């Protein structure tokens, strides 16, 4: 398989705190990788470094074989790596459809027009398709602050996918979403991801979600990767059970939706 993202000895220090220690990760094209770990384990720091939000202290990050160290978030996005956020990052004073239209315009060109209208018929039609694809068409003209958390998360992920990225990083896509909504949300996201043929890496605390959707798990603890492999094997690992998941009963639902 072809490697799409590779980190070599990636380190991040905040003063005396080591948030990431010698992270060596290889993600292959087409994989759906789950990142697990307790709070402060370094999961979000890893995503933030890879997407250019944080500058690593040491190490190397390669995307499609090319170094992206020191690149800005926008350059990394343009290179084909998109992300969503733990707290959905939207434009709160705009409607849901306008959020998508802005993302569509950004995907078309890095230099927005000075005089051509942003809300063109073509963009509105495409945004409506995306609303239907993500099942949020009922919120079309609602301000994003007025829609439920689950729908907000979906809009956030939809915006990340609009630029047709090769890789998508999701930071806790189901956080703040009710238990009932989690499966629907993840099914919707994974369907969209499969249609776009995107490699996915997502941080998740809910082990049921991890077991159900990923083909591989990276377990983080105290800035290090303590296990890497198939979900069943990683979640059954004694060290992972002791340090990350606790002694929960392991279930074998397999990769139901993948």
């Amino acid at each position, binding site marked *: 398989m072809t490697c799409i993202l590779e980190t070599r000895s990636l380190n991040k220090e905040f003063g005396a705190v080591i948030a990431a220690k010698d992270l060596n990760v290889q993600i292959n094209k087409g994989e759906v990788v789950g990142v697990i770990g307790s709070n402060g384990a370094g999961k979000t720091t890893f995503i933030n470094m890879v997407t250019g939000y944080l500058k690593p202290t040491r190490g190397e990050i390669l995307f499609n074989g090319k170094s992206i160290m020191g690149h800005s978030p*926008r350059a990394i*996005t343009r290179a084909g790596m998109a992300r969503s956020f733990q707290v959905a990052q*939207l*434009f*709160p004073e*705009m409607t849901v459809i306008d959020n998508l239209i802005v993302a569509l315009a*950004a995907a078309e060109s890095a230099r927005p*027009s000075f005089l051509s209208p942003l809300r063109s018929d073509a963009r509105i039609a495409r945004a409506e398709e995306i609303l239907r694809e993500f099942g949020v068409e009922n919120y079309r003209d609602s301000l994003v602050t007025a829609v439920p958390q689950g729908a907000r998360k979906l809009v956030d992920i939809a915006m990340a996918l609009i630029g047709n990225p090769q890789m998508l990083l999701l930071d806790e896509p189901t956080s703040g979403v009710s238990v009932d909504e989690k499966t629907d949300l993840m099914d919707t996201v994974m369907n969209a991801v499969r249609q776009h043929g995107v490699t996915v890496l997502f941080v998740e605390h809910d082990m049921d979600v991890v077991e159900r959707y990923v083909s591989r798990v990276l377990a983080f603890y105290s800035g290090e990767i303590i296990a890497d492999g198939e979900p069943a094997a990683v979640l059954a690992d004694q060290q992972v059970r002791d340090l990350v998941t606790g002694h929960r009963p392991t279930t074998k639902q397999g990769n139901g939706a993948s």
Partner: protein
Amino acid sequence: MRLDKTEISLGLVALACVLFGFVSPGWLIFLLTIALAKALVVQGVVMQMRSGLVSFGQGLFYCIGGYTVGMGGQFFGIHDAIAALSLGMFVAIVVAMLLGLLLTRYREIFFAMLSLAFSMILFGILVKSQELGSTDGFNVHDWTLFGWAPEAGAGSQHTVFTMTVVSGLIVAVLIHRYTKAGIGVICEAVRENEVRVEYLGLSPRWLLYGNYVAAAAVSALGGGLTALATGHVDPEMAYWTTSGEFVFIALLGGLGHVAAPFIAAIVFSFVRTYAIEFVPHTWQMILGFTLLAVIIFLPKGLWSLVSREKTGERA
């Protein structure tokens, strides 16, 4: 080029203003000319407010526009009004392109204070320049329009009023389109969530830079027209109180519509003129109470009166 409802309305109002100019008294024409010219500067302030930046130094470009028109006629033999105004805008664009490289790195109060600092630097330079009349400034040379020299006095006043109305219309239509265009809407997106804009693959800084330069050009046009109307320029154009006045008018009008700065500038000019006329020692207090009333009762500016009315009609 298809015109929408707002653009047609702006055109009709501009036509009415030009016709009104033929029948109204000279003092009113002058007052409206200055108000509309200042509204152009305020448009520049509003453009930046939409992107989340408040410029307390827009007087810099107002002054550059005015002084370039004055110096063009005085020192370089540029007497054509259109050429002088264009030159003023060009100089403002060049200055904004340089300053913007630094200013667009900053946000909130840091941007506001830095923009004010540059304006005050220009004020300081002009005050110390004996050749440019120091604190007194200098008179603007008689100007022409495509080779035609308007009569001094009423003729000149009426011509510059018409030019200001036409300039205002062109700028209003362009800004109306700009606010609905990619850069206009995405600049608002920058104000709302800069991180998301960055992760859509866009550079907030360069968007703000483009916006800053465009705002400078519009403001310089306002300065140039003021110089033509008053026939005089002085360093007060770059002083911090002048910049504060533009922010005052911007708040008075609100960000709701491209017409708001024009309405606010006219209201401001009338309130100030009559306050000075009737209560000459406390006119600043009257202005202060006016702003206070607008902030308390119309937090979205005078334009919210119009938008409320429209909403009421729809309901």
